[in-house]
C-alpha cells in the first residue's frame, strides 16, 4: 500500500517535471527562473496541509489518547518542517534574480519563517522528552497552540509590512495564469501532496514498528 503510494508519487513528480519544463511556456518577464514556482508553491501548500493535519491529529490524540493519532501528528510535523524548509529555500533562490535579494522581511516570507521555527520547536520538544506518553501529550498541546497561532502570525506580519509599504514588486507570479502554467502548477501540487502522503505513511509505519520493538 505504502509502496504503491511511493510509485504514484514518483509518477506524479515525473509528470510534474515534464509539465514544468516541457509543457509550461517560458515566462515572458522572468524567464526560466519562474519555473521555480512549480516547486515553491506546491511545497508551501503541502507545508500548510501538514501543519493542519498536526492540528487535527493533536486534537484527536487528546480526545482519544490513541497512539496512531500521535504518530500521525509527529510524522506530519516532520514532513511539514522539511517542506517549509524547501519552500523558503526555493523562494530565496527565486527571490535573488527577481527581487535582487535572497531575503526580505515581506509578510509571507516572515510568516513562513516564523512557522518554520515554531514547528522546529515542536520537534525539539518531542526529542527532549523521553517518556513517550508525556511527549505525546505535551506536543499535542503545542501542536494546537502553534496551529491556532498561525493565523495571528499571518495577520500581524501582514499589517506590520503592508501598512508601511504595500507589495508592489513583492508579489511573485502573475495573477491571471495562462492555462498551461496553471496546469503544470496543479500537476505539481498533486504530485507533492502524494509525496507528502508517502512520507507520512512511511514514517507512521516506522514509528509503529519502533513502538512495537520497545514495548
Amino acid at each position: 500500500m505504502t509502496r504503491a503510494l511511493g510509485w504514484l508519487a514518483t509518477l506524479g513528480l515525473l509528470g510534474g517535471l515534464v509539465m514544468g519544463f516541457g509543457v509550461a511556456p517560458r515566462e515572458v518577464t522572468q524567464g526560466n527562473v519562474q519555473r521555480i514556482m512549480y516547486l515553491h508553491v506546491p511545497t508551501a501548500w503541502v507545508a500548510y496541509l501538514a501543519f493542519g493535519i498536526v492540528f487535527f491529529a493533536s486534537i484527536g490524540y487528546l480526545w482519544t489518547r490513541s497512539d496512531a493519532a500521535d504518530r500521525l501528528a509527529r510524522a506530519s510535523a516532520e514532513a511539514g518542517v522539511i517542506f517549509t524548509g524547501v519552500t523558503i529555500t526555493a523562494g530565496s533562490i527565486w527571490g535573488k534574480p527577481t527581487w535582487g535579494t535572497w531575503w526580505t522581511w515581506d509578510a509571507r516570507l516572515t510568516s513562513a519563517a516564523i512557522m518554520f521555527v515554531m514547528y522546529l520547536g515542536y520537534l525539539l520538544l518531542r526529542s527532549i522528552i523521553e517518556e513517550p506518553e508525556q511527549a505525546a501529550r505535551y506536543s499535542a498541546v503545542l501542536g494546537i497552540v502553534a496551529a491556532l497561532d498561525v493565523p495571528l502570525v499571518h495577520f500581524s506580519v501582514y499589517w506590520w509590512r503592508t501598512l508601511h509599504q504595500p507589495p508592489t514588486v513583492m508579489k511573485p507570479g502573475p495573477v491571471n495564469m495562462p492555462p498551461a502554467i496553471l496546469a503544470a502548477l496543479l500537476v505539481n501540487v498533486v504530485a507533492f501532496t502524494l509525496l507528502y502522503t508517502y512520507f507520512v505513511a512511511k514514517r507512521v509505519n516506522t514509528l509503529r514498528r519502533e513502538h512495537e520493538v520497545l514495548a
Partner: protein
Amino acid sequence: MRFARRAWIVVWKDLTIEGRSKETLNALLFFSLLLLFLFQFALGPDRERLASVLPGLLWLGFIQSGLLGLGRTFVGERENDCWDGLRLAPGDKSAIYLGKLAGNLLLMLLVETILLALFAVFFNVDIGPAVPGLALVVGLGTIGLAAIGTLFAAMTAQVRARELLFPVLLLPVQVPVLLGTVKATEAVLLGEPLGAVAHWLRLLAAADVVYVAIGVLTFDFILDG
C-alpha cells in the same frame, strides 16, 4: 463560585510566598535595571536614535523579564516536590491555570510599571500624556504573553533543558503579540489617537482570547498523566 475560590487559593499561595521571599520580584527588578544599562551602552547616547527604537526596546525589556519571571511559574512546586499536590487538587485543573496566570500577570505588570518608569527617567521621555493608552497596550500585551507563558511553563517544568526549551517555544508563538504591542506603543508614544491602531488592539485582544482559551482547555492535559 467554587471554581473562582480554587483559582484564588493558588493566587493567594503564590503571592504569599512571593511577598515573603520577594525572590523573583527583586531579581526581576535588578535584571530590568541591568537591561536598561545594556540598551544604553549598546545604542550610545544619540537621543534621536534612542527615540526611534524606544517602543521596541521597551518590549524587548518586557519580554526578557517576562521570560525569566514566567519560566519560574512552577519552580516552587518543582523544587519542593509539590507537583503531585497540584495534580491531586480536586476539580477542574483550569482553576489552577487561571490562578497561576493571575499571579504571573500581577508580577509582570508590577515589573513592567517600574521598568516603564525607569525608562522614562533614564531615556528622558515624557510618558505622562501617553499613560492611559500605554496602560491599555501593556495590559493587552501582557495578558497574551502570560497566557501562553504560563501554559508553556507548566509544559517545560518537568522536562530537562527547560531553561532552554521555554524561550525557544515561547518566542515564535509570541510574534503577533510583540509586533502588535510594539506598533501600538509606538503610536501611543507619538501621541496618536488609539483609533489609529485599533486593528492592532483588536489583534491583541483576539490573541488574548485565543491564548487564554487554549490554556484553560488544555491545562488539564499538561498536569495529568
